[in-house]
């Protein structure tokens, strides 16, 4: 689904791999920032803060079922944004190689 740059974690700490890792992180964070606020906050709470569904429900003051469904939609949207990002990245590198 994602290009190799985005889907493989650098195993060796070469300069290139560190650069790729940095780019990857920047792209993911940029994609998260593009999410609508309800999606962004639930992604941050789950993936960054590692809160359980119950804890997220407490923070967001909503039922656990809502947490589940919103998280699913947020991830789908994030996947969509990342795919678009990687496509843009691929096309620009192709143009640059010409």
């Amino acid at each position, binding site marked *: *689904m*994602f290009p190799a740059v*985005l*889907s493989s*974690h650098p195993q060796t700490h070469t300069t290139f791999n560190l650069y790729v*890792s940095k780019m*990857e*992180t920047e792209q*993911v*964070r940029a994609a*998260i*920032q593009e999410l609508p*606020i309800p999606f*962004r*906050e639930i*992604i*941050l*709470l*789950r*993936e*960054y803060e590692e809160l*359980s*569904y119950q804890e997220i429900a*407490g*923070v*967001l*003051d909503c039922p656990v079922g809502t947490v*589940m469904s919103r*998280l*699913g939609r947020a*991830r789908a949207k*994030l*996947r969509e944004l*990342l795919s678009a990002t990687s496509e843009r990245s691929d096309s620009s590198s192709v143009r640059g190689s010409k």
Partner: protein
Amino acid sequence: MKGCDYYGMNIQLYLDKELTGQDLEEFHAHLEECPICRTELEAEEALSGLLHRSRPLYSAPDALRKRVIQVAELLPSTATAAPVRLRERIANILNVNRPSWPVLVTAILLVAVGLLLGPGILRQWRANGYIETAVAAHRSFLGGSLPLEIQSESPSIVTAWFAGKVPFTFRLPNSAEESGYEQLYRLAGGRLVNYKGGYAALIAYQAQQQKISLLVSSSRSAVAAGGEEVPSGGIVFHYSRQASFNIITWSTHGLTYALVSSLPGSGRQSCLVCHQSMSDDDRFSAGR
């Protein structure tokens, strides 16, 4: 029979460790035989791994996070990554009390004043505690609930009786008997009284049909402070009045004394009742 649509929903729960018990077992069993769900799980795991790798390397301690939230609340114009609403909710969950600026300034001023006056206040507080103990002992002595354990008019006998009974070297204050003048009061005796988990010495005097008590303790556990201060003979006497009693406190030679009486006049004048014909008369009257 449950199909891939059902288990597809469970992929997210599985990755988030929200799937347990029978549901987890069934999900594992389904994965074994369903390549479609395995592929979908791998894709979700890739996304999850990507998100985890983009997390900050270090998490701030809780206390620091709370402080950051407070600062963010105080500076609403500061651009932050987290949405304002999210920060507000996290702040609510953390139950952060956000003091207003006036409260903060007041608190800082109170701390500053406390630091400046702290030692003095503490000293006065300790002195007041000693006076209260002395007054309470005097009341009990007057009421008969603290009878004398040693009855003697001899300072040496009374002093010897306290030896080894109190956690300090007991010493009666210099008095009239050393001056050679006529005594207007006489020593009646003494007893032990409880003070700060140990013992203090309570000395009884008789003057003009009045009973006077003197509480003696180590200066390490008792201080003389506050009230009207009069230096005399290298000692600072502190005069105060509590209820109907005149109290005089002073410290010398590592001991702190609290004299309690109902003698007429102000605290300082009450001294002259006993010392009016003594050589130190001038010293006491000089301060008037």
